Each structure stands twice: as structure tokens, then as C-alpha cells.
């Protein structure tokens, strides 16, 4: 095809008109409505607490103030029992671990001469 005929063909096709029908316009508007980004809903108090972060989640898992108070009390009691076990427990510990022997971590002699 020569240049003149090709130019005529391109010009003919360039003159094509295409008016969108109501159906196409309605489909496009339906898409616009669907794709529209809605404002994010305001979080409720419960959702806000849930979203407060990892610490809040951990706090809630431990039972809040009541749960963590009990946990702290149990920890303190455990430390105390380790430091000063009551007499009633000595028989139990001997039964489990055998004969116990006390070892002083401090030198028996007054190395530093603090006792005069």
C-alpha cells in the first residue's frame, strides 16, 4: 500500500466516533462507587484497647492488676522460702535431696582483722 492510501486509511479510521451508551456509563459509575475509599470508622473503646500494642495485650493476658498482683506476691513468697525455709520443710528437703550440709561462703577466720 502506498503512502497516500495508507494516509487515507489512517484518516478514515481516525474519524471514527464512539459514543458510550447509558449501560457503559452506568457500569463505570458503579465501579467508581465501589472503588471509592471510605473514611476509616472510628474505633470503639474495646477496639482501641485491643489496638494499644503488645504491652497492653500481655497485660490483659496476665489478668490485669488482679492477676499481676497475685503473680508478684507468689514471686516474693518464693524468694522468701528460698532464703528462710520454715522448719517443717527441712524434713522434706532432706527426703528429696538427702543429708544437707551447710557451707559458709565466708572465711571462718577473721582475715581482714575486723574483730579486733
Amino acid at each position, binding site marked *: 500500500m*502506498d503512502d497516500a492510501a495508507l494516509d487515507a486509511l*489512517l484518516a478514515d479510521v481516525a474519524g471514527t466516533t464512539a459514543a*458510550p451508551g447509558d449501560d457503559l456509563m452506568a457500569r463505570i459509575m458503579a465501579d467508581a462507587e465501589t472503588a*471509592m475509599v471510605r473514611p476509616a470508622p472510628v474505633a470503639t473503646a474495646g477496639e482501641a484497647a485491643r489496638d494499644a500494642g503488645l504491652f497492653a495485650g500481655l497485660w490483659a493476658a496476665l489478668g490485669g492488676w488482679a492477676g499481676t498482683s497475685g503473680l508478684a506476691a507468689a514471686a516474693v513468697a518464693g524468694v522468701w522460702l528460698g532464703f528462710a525455709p520454715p522448719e517443717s520443710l527441712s524434713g522434706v528437703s532432706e527426703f528429696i535431696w538427702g543429708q544437707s550440709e551447710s557451707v559458709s561462703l565466708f572465711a571462718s577466720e577473721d582475715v581482714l582483722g575486723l574483730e579486733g
Partner: protein
Amino acid sequence: MPVKDLRSTTTTEATPDGALLVAYANGDLSAAQELTRRLAPRVLAQATKMLADRTEAEDVTQEALMRLWKIAPDWRQGEAEVSTWLYRVVANMCTDRLRRRARGVALDAIAEPEDGSPSVADQMQDNARRKALSDALAQLPERQAQAVSLRHLEGLSNPDIAEVMQIGVEAVESLTARGKRALAALLAGRKNELGYRDD
């Protein structure tokens, strides 16, 4: 189903496309309707000229505008023209479809003009010309097909095409020239058949 008139006082004829798109992103559906009224006819025409298929062209129009709605929240006014962006999206979508079509269509199978009454024959001639050009565009490298269609079917200037295709003006000139030469070769021998007689 007719589209409801949602136009409001915030969307006037003078409002730029970009401002309407931002208004839509902010929840103004009437801005989308004004954009659709402005842009859909041009998008449909561009797709129809390249594809020579009304149904496919409507699909491209709907999909191109859907992409526009989706990009709206990220649109930055002043950085790009909505029309330029749409020319690019539609040209890409059309050459994608032409490429798929080219896999299944041999050039020998390009539509032939058919017999009929004069008015029907004229219509068929027009259809055959559009189909012949579309099928020939499908045989071109994509960038050549886009440059030729934007220059000769949409009537854009070379600097405008350069912006749409995001290349230099010289590259546009080269693509257009090579594309036209390739089209002439693909359509060789079909001049009389498509109704272009020697004067």
C-alpha cells in the same frame, strides 16, 4: 439504566481533571461522574480505533477508568495530566489485546469487504478498513503500534506522544516512521480491496 445526575456545584466545567480526581478521592462521587462524562467518550474512541471491536473497546474503557478510580487516592495534582495518563493506559491495554489477537490471526485472515446494498456496503467497507488496520497494528511491535496510533489516529503532537510514552521526541519520530513503513508493507496489495482507488 440511566446514570443519575450527581453533579454538584463543586464540579464545574472549568474544574481541571486532576482536581476532580482528588475530589473523588475525598468522597465526592459527583466528581467521578463529571470525569466519566468527559473521559469515557475519548477513551472509548481510542480503544475502538485501535481494536475495531466495540465490545472489546467497552471493556477497555471500563477497565481503564477503574484503574483511574483506584489510583485516585495516590494522585498528585500538577505532576501529570489525567488525559496523558489515560492515553498511556489505554494504548498499553489495547496493544496487549492486539498482541493476544495476533497470536491467533494470520494476516491472510484479515476481514474482507463483503457484498451488500450501497449503504450496508459502505458500512461494511468502513468496518473492513478498521479491522484491516487493527489487525495490521497487531502485527507491529507494541511501541510502534502505540506511536502510530497516537500520532495518526488520536492526532497527538510528537512532544505529547513523547510524554505519553515517556520517551524522547526523536524516539517518537523514529517509532512512527518505522511503524508506518511496516503498516504499508503489511497492507501491500490491499489498496483496491479496501476501496482506495488510483486517481
